[in-house]
């Protein structure tokens, strides 16, 4: 054992691990974070993978980082600086486009160009989603109560929740029920008629899940986007200066300022357990570090089957972890560009290049993309969410040059025959070919191309099956079911061993809520 003793050791320097570390250190605990890679952030990292060009390699925008975390940890003081990402355009196959701009009047007029009815509906739909988001928001901030438990704390939580839902009134409760059960395509069909609008809105319902827009349950994920809207006043939505690694570094800065120690290149091999209690961790180097409190920021599969001996855990838990769905469904293509892409639908260097470009011309297009994946292939014509970070933060690329981030879906982890170098490049080609249909000059601009499949995401970040949310954000594994029924409150059956990653409630996105709630729960329980 090394000489130093810690009150808390966190496994994994992803953003949730760092958030948890910062809260624990602020509460006076001697805290150590251990990160396997040379850099912090997990899937929220910035790397210069081509000289002079910086990439938010995996996660690329901030939308849901909890305002209370920003305030509690004083993240702006440690480098958090979120720049506005103002627009989205959806190129259409007929050469036109659908734009959504930062000014609501401009957006409304744009939508009227395509459908006056949808322009009217949009405002009413926005109001409904506002109410739905307000209805769900308290859930994000609470430790999930177990509905099968009679423990006073669970009952209190359930009562609070019951009271909250009663206060919604019948109309909103019914709307919420529909949102929880329908597919995003069906749900949006009730409101809108214009295909590219429905497709672009529904795309936010499929990100990171192995579902198509016509799969039931996909409507709920739409709501996650509106959660950002009601915190809109706080304006925590956009692009972090210097890429998403800047967020991780800001959180790490706050943790260090509170006294936490952070070590990189320090891979944890296993959690030490004696008589049902944790006593510390053993590193891959052989070093052992003693602590009565060990918190895993890794996903449930790694937390329960890699870091500890599975035999020491209850069979139901292991079965639950086995059933828990990862099914990575998305990939990433990062391009270093010698100039700006020229979109046929909006030629030139207009303001649309400072926002997102969504390749989602129709629901059919997205569903066909899903069909490929369903049968074990990557989408020949995938859904893509494209941003050019260097247009927002010029520091991301040399002057006049650009970086492009392309989020791609679908790329199934379980590809027929498995991922190979050749298949990775074929996937990259499919992405660039699809983009070239809308921006024909793209191929001539590419200085460097990085293609990341779910297998690459797993290999580099450790995220099982390359799922960006540490497990799908599907209803059957959310809230008191995340990751596994009865183990949704950040605890594990091993005394002193806790979980704080996105595989716990409320999960995914650079939100930090899992890390914060886990730390608060640990502190409330005296460990």
């Amino acid at each position: 054992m090394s000489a130093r003793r810690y009150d808390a050791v966190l496994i994994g320097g992803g953003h949730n691990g760092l958030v948890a570390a910062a809260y624990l250190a602020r509460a006076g605990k001697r805290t150590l974070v251990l990160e396997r890679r040379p850099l912090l952030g997990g899937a929220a990292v910035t790397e210069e993978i081509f000289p002079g060009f910086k990439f938010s390699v995996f996660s690329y925008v901030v939308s849901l980082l909890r305002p209370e975390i920003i305030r509690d940890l004083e993240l702006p003081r440690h480098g958090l600086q979120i720049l506005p990402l103002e627009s989205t355009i959806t190129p259409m196959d007929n050469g036109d486009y659908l734009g959504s701009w930062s000014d609501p009047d401009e957006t409304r007029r744009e939508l009227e160009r395509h459908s006056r009815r949808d322009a009217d509906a949009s405002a009413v739909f926005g109001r409904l989603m506002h109410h739905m988001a307000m209805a769900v928001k308290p859930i994000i901030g609470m430790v999930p109560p177990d509905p099968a438990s009679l423990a006073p704390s669970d009952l209190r939580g359930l009562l609070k929740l019951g009271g909250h839902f009663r206060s919604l009134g019948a109309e909103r409760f019914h709307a919420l029920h529909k949102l929880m059960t329908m597919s995003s395509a069906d749900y949006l069909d009730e409101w809108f008629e214009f295909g590219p609008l429905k497709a672009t809105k529904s795309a936010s319902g499929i990100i990171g899940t192995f579902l198509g827009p016509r799969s039931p349950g996909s409507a709920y994920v739409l709501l996650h986007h509106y959660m950002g809207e009601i915190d809109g006043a706080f304006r925590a939505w956009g692009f972090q200066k210097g890429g998403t690694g800047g967020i991780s570094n800001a959180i790490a800065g706050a943790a260090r300022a509170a006294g936490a120690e952070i070590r990189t290149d320090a891979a944890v091999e296993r959690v030490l357990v004696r008589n049902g209690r944790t006593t510390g961790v053993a590193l891959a180097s052989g070093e052992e570090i003693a602590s009565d409190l060990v918190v895993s920021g890794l996903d449930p599969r790694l937390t329960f089957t890699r870091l500890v001996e599975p035999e020491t855990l209850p069979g139901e838990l292991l079965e639950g972890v086995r059933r828990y769905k990862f099914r990575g469904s998305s990939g990433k293509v990062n391009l270093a560009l010698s100039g700006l892409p020229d979109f046929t639908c909006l030629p030139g260097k207009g303001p649309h290049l400072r926002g997102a470009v969504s390749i989602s011309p129709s629901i059919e297009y997205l569903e066909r993309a899903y069909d490929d994946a369903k049968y074990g292939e990557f989408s020949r014509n995938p859904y893509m969410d494209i941003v050019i970070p260097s247009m927002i933060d010029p520091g991301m690329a040399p002057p006049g040059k650009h970086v492009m981030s392309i989020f791609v879906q679908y790329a199934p982890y379980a590809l027929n025959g498995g991922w190979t170098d050749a298949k990775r490049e074929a996937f990259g080609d499919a992405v660039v070919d699809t983009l070239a249909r809308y921006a024909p000059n793209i191929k001539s601009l590419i200085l460097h191309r990085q293609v990341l499949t779910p297998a690459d995401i797993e290999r580099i970040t450790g995220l099982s099956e390359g799922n960006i949310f540490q497990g799908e954000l599907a209803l059957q594994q959310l809230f008191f079911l995340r990751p596994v029924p009865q183990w949704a409150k950040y605890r594990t059956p091993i005394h002193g061993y806790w979980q704080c990653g996105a595989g716990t409630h409320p999960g995914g996105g650079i939100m930090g809520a899992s890390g914060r709630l886990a730390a608060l729960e640990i502190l409330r329980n005296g460990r």
Partner: protein
Amino acid sequence: MLKITPFHSRTAPLVRAQTWRRWAGYQMASAYDPHPDREYAAIRNAAALIDVSPLHKYMLTGTDSARLLDRMITRDMTKCTVGQVYYTPWCDAAGKVIDDGTVSRLADSTYRLTSADSSLRWLQMNAVGMNVQIEDVSERVGTLALQGPLSRAILQQISPGDFTKLKYFRVIETTVGGVPVTVSRTGYTGDLGYEIWVEAPRAEALWDALIQAGTPYGITPAGVWALDIARIEAGLIMLDVDYFSAHHALIEARKSSPYEINLGWAVSPGKGPFNGRRALAAERGRGAAWGFVGLELDWDSFERLFRAHHLPPHLSNIAWRASAPVYRDGIQIGYATSGSWSPLLKQSLALAHLRAPHFNPGTQVRLEITVEHQRKTADAVVRKLPFFDPERKKA
């Protein structure tokens, strides 16, 4: 008829929502986009190009020009070297502030004074019997503020001037894009930045050169709305918003001394005779009656006021300029004069006049805000200004 600045032909086509305002009798862009988020972000992340030509500008020459300035302003003009710039207030005989601005020493006996209000008469009144020529060059000289972390990198592309050597509050003569200019390392944003002074006929050429060289660095034309947010973060006061000129205030209570508007640091009591010297010495002895400080709103308290109405908190994306009462223990102790949500600091900020002894940093106060048509108060804490002071400003 409102005047237009020498950059109007370049700025006007960019004002997409026709959001114009008045500034010292000039027509001025509030913002180029319908809202200022992106323009503000450029100030803090890249570089913003702001037309600040409506400033009043005077060239002072002649052997007594330093004497005139020393008599007028509160700082010690005898210590100002060639190439140096002073930010300073100036007062009436009662020690009440008339205006604030910058003095640049361009050559041995050549100075440029800027002011928010027209100052010709006051200069002339103070110059009686002195060998000094006062020329109002307000319309002859256009001014662009290039502000933000990449402003230096942009200037270096198109100017032979050595901007790594140009220190904070220093000025040089050089060319930018081949256009003769003076460049001062000054500004109203509290960030790394420069103000570029150009003869009006060459103004457009200067604008074009900066836009061309700056585009790869994210240069963004910005209007007054964006500037207003930045100057509040930087704790910089504004005439007619945060204080009133002693020459225009209708009642005594509206006048302020430098000590009362956080400019005590700019008063040099030991220097030779100057306007307001005796009154300021007396005030210094007894302590100022008012302090000018920052207020930082407590978010939880703010959010609670909205939650009572089942509303998410509402924040405007432009700064406010209005008087809002400030209370402590139920008694009004002062008033805020302007404020803004800080997109950078993620805090609601305000600038406020507070009575002694309530202006010490850390003091808990309450600020009046209106929520759903009802006047409420939210918790706030007194902060020392500036709220935001990056190293790069002076580095």
